[in-house]
């Protein structure tokens, strides 16, 4: 227990919380007795992999469960009110007024048909906390505190007219509208860029401090929780692993599982010798300018990718990383410039490329969920490229599929006839890798392949990609916004901003000063495990600006 809160009154007590989820006609326990105490003004970080039950526990703290789940045991006391047995009316009075919730994707949680202000005012007016006019002026005040641009007028925009980071802040402001005693933040910054994430984190932390609000902060990012929480609780498969105040937890974790989480960012690729001068790169992007409609998304982009090398393309969303990939694959025809493969110019449109040219360049997608046809079995998913490009049939094909499954470390007998829905996120991504490998390519584009995965799982995928690269002499183009991933896997780095290459060079140089100001900003925005990191960073930046 952190001492600073020891004398404050207890706001929320959860004892022996058990939650069951419905799967295939029977109930399965997904949270097995979690205890939790939260005092006024305290922030508790809940961390764990996906499936650990973080969100389920967070929602249960409001007395709510998702569809197909039920609370089967334990008690939830919020300020003396038993939420498990409270009437619907009591719960309705509490929710939004005294307990609020901030969802992961503000873009998906706002109603696109109403202005921000209308949505802000709904809770206070409904609960009778204040009148419409009062609520509006209050909103402007909170928008200002959240450092949103043009606080007077931003409320009269629709959600799609506001950027993702601003929307997330508007959502936090909305949660504060009734000055609740407890806010539950469910991965509020996971969908944001690192540079935007900082603004949101700082704003959330300030506002929680200003109003002395208690919060449960759910995330899988340890560095983020280190900035936000007073105490951290680690969950694993519905069980509590350990709980301690943030500094103790970071410096001296007790359990092996926690230690493994802490050590996860340790994978680094061995330094590669420099490419000999005059070698033909596998892929060479030459002075590409491309765009949609009248707007140029890419301006004069050039870089090379050599055999057995990984080039990481880094930048915020909207910087043109994925558009570059679309130009290379031939989905987007560039206005100027060309893409060379082994020194030969590729036809700009994929429909004009030969089957062999298509085979040589493969792609692994960010969301394995949407990249694998949900109605096809693994056998067909992986087998199809092998069948198409290499003409394998019958026994030879099955043999090849089994070989590929072995390569991605999945047991062939178990997995060959499964559907994608019967796999975990990491396993799906492995199937995506196997599908790319099945074509026996020379070059693979990895588009944010680990950003939708938990850190432990992502680590496994990175190791696998590294192993395969050495084994098959692959060239990788690795699109990512996560600099920790860059450190782990890249040989060379290309930094992009607004469709231009800002800086490029070997990894060792890129992580050493002097930097381009934008690279500097990106690098300094990656959260670190130090709990004082955010405070220090904000002070430094304020000093520089001031």
């Amino acid at each position: 227990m952190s001492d600073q809160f020891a004398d404050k009154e207890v706001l929320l007590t959860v004892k022996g919380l058990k939650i069951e989820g419905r799967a295939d006609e029977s109930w399965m326990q997904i949270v097995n007795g979690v205890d939790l105490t939260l005092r006024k003004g305290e922030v508790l970080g809940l961390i764990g992999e996906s499936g650990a039950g973080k969100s389920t526990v967070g929602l249960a703290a409001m007395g709510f469960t998702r569809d197909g789940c039920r609370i089967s045991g334990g008690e939830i006391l919020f300020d003396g009110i038993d939420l498990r047995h409270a009437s619907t009316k009591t719960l309705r009075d509490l929710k939004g007024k005294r307990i609020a919730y901030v969802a992961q994707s503000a873009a998906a949680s706002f109603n696109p048909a109403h202005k921000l202000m209308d949505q802000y005012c709904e809770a206070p007016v409904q609960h009778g906390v204040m009148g419409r006019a009062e609520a509006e002026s209050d909103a402007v005040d909170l928008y200002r505190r959240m450092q949103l641009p043009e606080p007077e007028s931003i409320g009269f925009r629709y959600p799609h007219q506001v950027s993702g980071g601003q929307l997330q802040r508007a959502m936090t402001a909305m949660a504060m509208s009734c000055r609740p005693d407890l806010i539950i933040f469910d991965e509020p910054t996971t969908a944001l860029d690192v540079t935007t994430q900082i603004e949101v984190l700082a704003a959330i932390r300030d506002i929680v401090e200003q109003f002395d609000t208690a919060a449960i902060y759910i995330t899988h990012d340890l560095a983020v929780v280190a900035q936000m929480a007073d105490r951290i609780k680690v969950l694993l498969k519905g069980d509590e692993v350990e709980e301690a105040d943030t500094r103790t937890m970071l410096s001296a974790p007790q359990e092996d599982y926690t230690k493994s989480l802490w050590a996860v960012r340790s994978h680094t690729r061995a330094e590669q010798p420099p490419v000999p001068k005059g070698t033909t790169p596998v892929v060479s992007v030459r002075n590409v300018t491309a765009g949609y409609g009248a707007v140029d998304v890419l301006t004069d982009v050039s870089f090379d990718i050599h055999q057995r090398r990984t080039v990481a393309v880094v930048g915020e969303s909207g910087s043109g990383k994925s558009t570059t990939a679309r130009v290379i694959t031939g989905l987007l025809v560039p206005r100027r410039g060309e893409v060379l493969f082994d020194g030969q110019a590729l036809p700009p449109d994929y429909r004009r490329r030969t089957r062999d040219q298509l085979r040589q360049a493969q792609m692994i997608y960010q969301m394995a969920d949407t990249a694998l046809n949900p109605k096809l079995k693994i056998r067909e998913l992986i087998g199809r490229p092998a069948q198409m490009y290499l003409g394998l049939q019958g026994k030879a094909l099955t043999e090849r599929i089994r070989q590929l499954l072995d390569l991605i470390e999945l047991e062939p007998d178990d997995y060959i006839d499964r559907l994608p829905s019967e796999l975990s996120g990491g396993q799906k991504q492995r199937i995506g890798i196997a599908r790319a490998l099945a074509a026996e390519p020379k070059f693979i584009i990895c588009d944010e392949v680990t950003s939708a995965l938990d850190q432990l799982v992502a680590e496994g995928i990175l190791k696998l990609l590294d192993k395969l690269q050495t084994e098959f002499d692959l060239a990788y183009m690795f699109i990512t916004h996560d600099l920790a991933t860059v450190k782990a896997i890249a040989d060379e780095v290309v930094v992009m901003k607004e469709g231009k290459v800002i800086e490029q060079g070997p990894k060792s140089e890129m992580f050493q000063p002097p930097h381009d100001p934008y690279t500097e900003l990106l690098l300094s925005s990656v959260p670190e495990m130090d709990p004082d990191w955010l405070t220090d960073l904000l002070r430094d930046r304020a000093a520089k600006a001031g």
Partner: protein
Amino acid sequence: MGILLNILYFIAFIVAAMAAGWLFRAIVIAISPRAIAKEMRTAPLTASFGLLMILLYTLVAIFAPWIAPFPETEIVGREFQVWDDVNWLGTDALGRDMLTRMIYGARNTVGIAFATTALAFVLGSILGLLAATVGGWMDQSLSRSVDVLMAIPSLIFSLLLLTIFGTSVLTLIIVIAIIDSTRVFRLARSVSVTIVVMDYIEAAKLRGEGKWHLITREILPNALAPLVAEFGLRFCFVFLAISALSFLGLGIQPPTADWGSMVKENATLITFGDITPLLPAGAIALLTVSVNFVVDWQLHRASGLKE
């Protein structure tokens, strides 16, 4: 007292139906090969009752000449006879045996309705999927043509076409199928436009797959659930369309037996409190309900929905 008795009859009917469904399912599981038996075990009672009914209708339709006590168009007595030992369900407005007409009606109405719906679906889904997959001018021209077809009230349009091309069974099937396929086209297209933007379709395109593979292997399996549901609904509408056309004299031509026109021909009896004219309507209702029971079950499985 009468109402109570009716409620009792109704409950007895439901119980009997469910019992029949249960028995049917048990028998199918016992006698069929393992793969089918495994499927059947997942069927709820409603679905197995639906399957049983569809099976019965099919058998009746196929073996109509052997089951029916009289030839289809023979006048066997005076008009509007009551139910007796010879004519179990009495006779119709011309003195033809009602039961015989019902049995032959199964053959004509169900056969034509099924053929029409199937044709409408093949046509509508292929074009809809094609429009969504190819996009551009193909999508525009197909969609706008469908808009034009849909702008004309379907009954009037089919009347017009049938008057032009004549009223043979084949033209009837083709005309209704084409008009109905516009609805299927819209559904198939709107379902697949959300599918074609998925990454796995992009992956398949980049792999160099042809249109046919894209449509049949990548898109169709994902669009099947709503299409199957629509099939059940469309089937009922086609019944109504054929009956309406028969009523107007452009559908199935007399003396061919058809449930829709049988209701119309004998409608006068209703005023005398006789339920005979409602029997063909009941047959239509029972079949459509049964088809939808089965469709619901399949839909439930295909979409992976869970309660």
